[in-house]
């Protein structure tokens, strides 16, 4: 009965033929070869197989395989632009994502509001500031000063204002409210539905009410069935309630009519121009890099 030769043995024999065994493995194998004639015969057969293959007739090449300039055109310098274009595309894409992420931040809406409102006060007519000066110097009046109340579109019943509202991406359609009244952003009028233009527009400036009127407003019944308190009737939306007549004159301008409002519009427009530019850059450089790599 001849002992069986395992696959591992064949691998060891093959490696032995090519001198790929360590000294210790070689010594062990030689001891086994002396003790097992069938293993020696298997080695002989493998060696013969190797000899047969080594003696395979060589084929002469039918022709030379040298390249001509037409077959192997020298790489043009602009082929080397492909990596740079790829990098530029990736970078532009990253910036584009960051710019969109910036507009989605909750603070973006507030920042634009501050950006618009603060200069509005600073740039109010000098006469108005002069009229306000005594009030500001009076400590009691300062403590009694009523902060202005601005009534924008209802939040809950009208689908919710969104940080995207100034971008023309206001909240959803109104739920349980009058048709056509959807989420209104900072500068969107309640009469208009979803703003369609990128820049916010105010077709009708908010109405300025006095404190007494504001008191009436406060006592007015709330509209809507949503859980959010303070939702005003739709006809009152877009009104600014201030504490005194002087305050009224201070706010008798809309944001768009003030340089601050124009600056805000310019800011939003600029952001969108940048985003469109980045998108074009991503697509342009990405496609250019792709085709360059295909051709190289």
């Amino acid at each position, binding site marked *: 009965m001849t002992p069986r030769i395992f*696959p591992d043995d*064949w*691998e060891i*024999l*093959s*490696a032995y033929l*090519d001198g*790929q065994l360590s000294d210790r493995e070689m010594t062990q194998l030689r001891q086994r070869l002396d003790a097992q004639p069938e293993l020696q*015969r298997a080695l*002989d*057969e*493998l060696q*013969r*197989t*190797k*000899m*047969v*293959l*080594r*003696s*395979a*007739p*060589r*084929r*002469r*090449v*039918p*022709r*030379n*395989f*040298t*390249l001509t*300039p037409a*077959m*192997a055109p*020298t*790489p043009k310098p602009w082929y080397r632009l492909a990596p740079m274009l790829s990098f530029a595309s990736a970078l532009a894409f990253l910036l584009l994502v960051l710019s969109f992420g910036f507009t989605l931040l909750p603070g973006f809406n507030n920042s634009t509001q501050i950006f618009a409102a603060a200069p509005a006060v600073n740039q109010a007519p000098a006469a108005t500031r002069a009229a306000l000066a005594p009030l500001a110097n009076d400590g009691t009046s300062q403590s009694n000063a009523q902060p202005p109340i601005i009534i924008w579109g209802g939040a809950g019943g009208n689908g919710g204002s969104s940080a995207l509202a100034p971008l023309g991406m206001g909240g959803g359609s109104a739920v349980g409210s009058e048709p056509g009244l959807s989420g209104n952003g900072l500068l969107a009028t309640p009469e208009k539905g979803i703003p369609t233009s990128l820049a916010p527009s105010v077709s009708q400036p908010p109405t300025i009410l006095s404190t007494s009127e504001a008191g009436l407003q406060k006592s007015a019944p709330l509209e809507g069935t949503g859980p959010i308190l303070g939702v005003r009737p739709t006809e009152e939306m877009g009104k600014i309630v201030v504490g005194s007549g002087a305050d009224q004159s201070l706010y008798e301008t809309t944001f768009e009519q003030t340089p601050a409002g124009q600056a805000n519009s310019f800011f939003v427009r600029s952001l969108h121009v940048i985003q469109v530019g980045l998108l074009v850059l991503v697509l342009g450089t990405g496609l250019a890099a792709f085709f360059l790599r295909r051709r*190289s």
Partner: protein
Amino acid sequence: MDETALVGAAQKGDLDAFNRLVLIYQEMAFNLAYRMLSDEDAAADATQVAFLSAYRSLASYRGGSFRAWVMRMVTNACYDELRRRQRRPTTPLEPMDNEDEEEIESPAWLADDDPSPEQVLELGELENAIQSCLGGLPDEFRAAVIMIDVEGMDYQEVSVAINKPLGTVKSRVARGRLKLRECLQSFWELLPAQFRLENEDKL
């Protein structure tokens, strides 16, 4: 100019330097392709494609055995051709016949300068036996066995050429040889006497 200098010049766009490298390795590349594909025209095409691919990919060469790197291009070109054949298998209109006049004009017969009729017959038998058995191997085993046993490359070069670790190369060579041993046993009587074992002569 040594090989390293030629490669460096070729990487800078010197086509003449690259063509000198082609002349050095084209026979080896063609034989590897022929053993892989068993067809001279297909082997010539694969060799040309491999050198063209090598020239275009010279920038990716990072040193080491240039021969192994070129053989990798040849192996890849052969794998592409084999895959193409699997997708679109073809059948030759007329089977190859040793008695055909075309076969007499094949390079196998022209390889020896002045062979005797007996030698020609033996070489023909040997060639047929080797190619038939190699053709029966899986592609991966065939490539490893051809590079080690036919072309005389070392394990490290084959590892580079087929882009596999040394252990894989050893295993593939061993398994390929085992299958070839079984296949060639049916051809022992037709092979030259020097390939017969002592025990076989006594049988």
